[in-house]
């Protein structure tokens, strides 16, 4: 959480920094913070796990927001790309399990191979994004939704029937080399990329496509090319998220990457506001903590054993109710297309005026 905030605010505050350093400054600031975080959490596996899940969800939501929010396309197969990343990264790690770089300490050599696995996962997801996006992004609107939905299911079925990926049992024994530091480095990267794109001519081209595709095309924006590129970037980070996921859960199986997972990510993006990176982050945090919150609520109410264990099943109806409530009260999502620092000051000013 801390890192995500620092990642989004630092580029704004970088005005006093020399131009050459401005680009790298957030990275230099983030690394020690992440190291500290990892060190602080070394003794509490539950917090590490929960924060890791949250981080993966943030990466998924922010990356999906690049396609669904900034470019205005509707992809509902993000879990498919996550699965590609998870399985291929996991596969690479399993293959390299016994290998170590001799001149490095073991922990460090593990991290190097982990990074390599992540990169493989991310790049193969990006390649899938390209192959899926190229034909379908030429079309408009609903077609992309249908194609991405189909893609997600195809990936799941393929994995379910491939021996190398453990069929329905999934892959187990993947080295658990991931930690909070690595997950939030991924979070940091995706937020940085999303914000930097938003602040460039590329980001403006994506917004233009979202607003009016015909006009964007007439103003010289290569709409198909930009859609494919945003899709590839988004899939890449979904693959990274999957790779991270595979390295901190004991087992990955096709059940983790179903349509329900895809919808969960879509709900995060819609809840936060289509096009708002900070909105996606907050929604991802909220929706990750929601089941935990419900669970402890039910436990404290004394509904032990029964309701508390069924939280995972009643999660989806709760999402549905949330969405309905959102559409009725604030159809544009939490922040609309704006970021938190655009919305909060105005809201604060209105509130103060109202009370005085």
């Amino acid at each position: 959480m801390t890192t995500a905030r620092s990642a989004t605010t630092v580029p704004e505050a970088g005005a006093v920094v020399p131009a050459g350093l401005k680009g790298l400054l957030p990275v230099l600031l983030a690394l020690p913070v992440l190291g500290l975080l990892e060190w602080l959490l070394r003794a509490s596996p539950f917090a590490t796990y929960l924060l890791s899940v949250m981080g993966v969800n943030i990466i998924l939501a922010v990356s999906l927001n690049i396609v669904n929010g900034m470019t205005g396309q509707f992809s509902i197969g993000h879990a498919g790309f996550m699965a590609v990343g998870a399985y291929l990264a996991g596969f690479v790690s399993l293959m390299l399990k016994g290998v170590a770089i001799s001149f490095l300490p073991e922990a460090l050599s593990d991290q190097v191979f982990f990074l390599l696995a992540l990169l493989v996962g991310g790049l193969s997801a990006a390649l899938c994004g390209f192959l899926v996006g190229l034909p379908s992004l030429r079309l408009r609107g609903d077609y992309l939704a249908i194609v991405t939905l189909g893609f997600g299911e195809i990936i799941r079925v393929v994995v379910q029937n491939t021996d190398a990926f453990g069929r329905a049992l999934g892959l187990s024994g993947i080295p658990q080399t991931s930690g909070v530091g690595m997950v939030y480095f991924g979070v940091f990267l995706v937020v940085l990329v999303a914000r930097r794109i938003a602040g460039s001519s590329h980001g403006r081209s994506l917004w233009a496509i979202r607003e009016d595709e015909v006009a964007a095309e007439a103003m010289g924006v290569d709409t198909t090319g930009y859609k494919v590129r945003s899709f590839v970037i988004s899939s890449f980070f979904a693959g990274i998220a999957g790779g991270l996921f595979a390295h901190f859960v004991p087992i990955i199986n096709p059940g983790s990457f179903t349509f329900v997972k895809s919808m969960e990510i879509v709900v995060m993006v819609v809840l936060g506001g289509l096009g708002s990176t900070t909105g996606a982050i907050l929604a991802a945090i909220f929706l990750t903590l929601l089941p935990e919150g419900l669970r402890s609520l039910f436990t404290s109410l004394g509904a032990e054993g029964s309701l508390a264990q069924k939280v995972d099943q009643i999660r989806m109806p709760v999402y549905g109710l949330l969405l309905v409530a959102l559409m009725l009260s604030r159809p544009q999502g939490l922040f609309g297309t704006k970021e938190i620092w655009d919305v909060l000051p105005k809201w604060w000013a209105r509130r103060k005026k109202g009370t005085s």
Partner: protein
Amino acid sequence: MSAPVQVTPEAPMLEAAGVSIQFGGLKALTDFNLTIRQGDLQGLIGPNGAGKSTAFNALTGVYRPTRGDVRVAGQRVNGWMPHRINHLGLARTFQNIRLFRALSVLDNVKVACRAETLSHQEHWLPASLFIAALRGVGGVGGEKGARGGQRLGEQLIEQAGALVLQGWWRSLFLTPGFQAEEQRITERADALLEVMGLSHRRNEEARNLPYGEQRRLEIARALGTQPKVLLLDEPAAGMNTREKADLMVLIRKLRDQFSLGVLVIEHDMKLVMGICERITVLDHGEMIARGAPDEVRNDRKVIEAYLGDSYLESHGGAA
């Protein structure tokens, strides 16, 4: 920007030769001819449904001509995507305003002020090796497969090249060159807003602008693409008399300042007759007259099809 108006009779910037558009059995446009050179200010008029906007769409690549050729800056552009035609120097506005509504006024223009794109034409060696490999893989499936493989490879290289070379990494690392370029784009966009008298609206959302200003913003945006020919689709629609008079002055000024060729679709006869040096009249997709305003105004066919006898009584008598 204010280059002197060149008097050399150079090649036409925009040329339509025998362009026809057919939707199924409907002939929306038949044998349409048009030539626009730098410094021209031409008009395109006709009753509703005469094919004026269809002609615009055919010229800008929204529709592909069923027959005939469209040439922009000497290039035959039949079947090109609109953005590539725009890159050759053809920009337009829309009859039903199509701004990027949720974006700020400044961002609307900045979208059009594209970065000076880096060339990614020269593929580096690994890329050509990769294409060759894909061709080889596809070759197992015969000649067709080989070509398919090559096309896929080229697409992939183009996208990767665009991501890597076309400055995406520059925006990710905020290189000094990128920051300077953003600065230049902002300055250019601000200059255009100044010309169109929209500077005071700079940071407002485009959808909150009054109608007349939205029309002007569309022109500013079109100018951002640095066109050689500007197509204006009913720029005065919804404007009051005063705004229309200002617009007439403005269109002339833009033509001279940016050394443009301009083609205007307009229903307001006073505006068209007032500024256009040459007018083309369409009816049922066919050209029924062309010439100077006075010739067109007195053309029997034009009066019957479009202007009507009442127009002749109120204006023709005085002429």
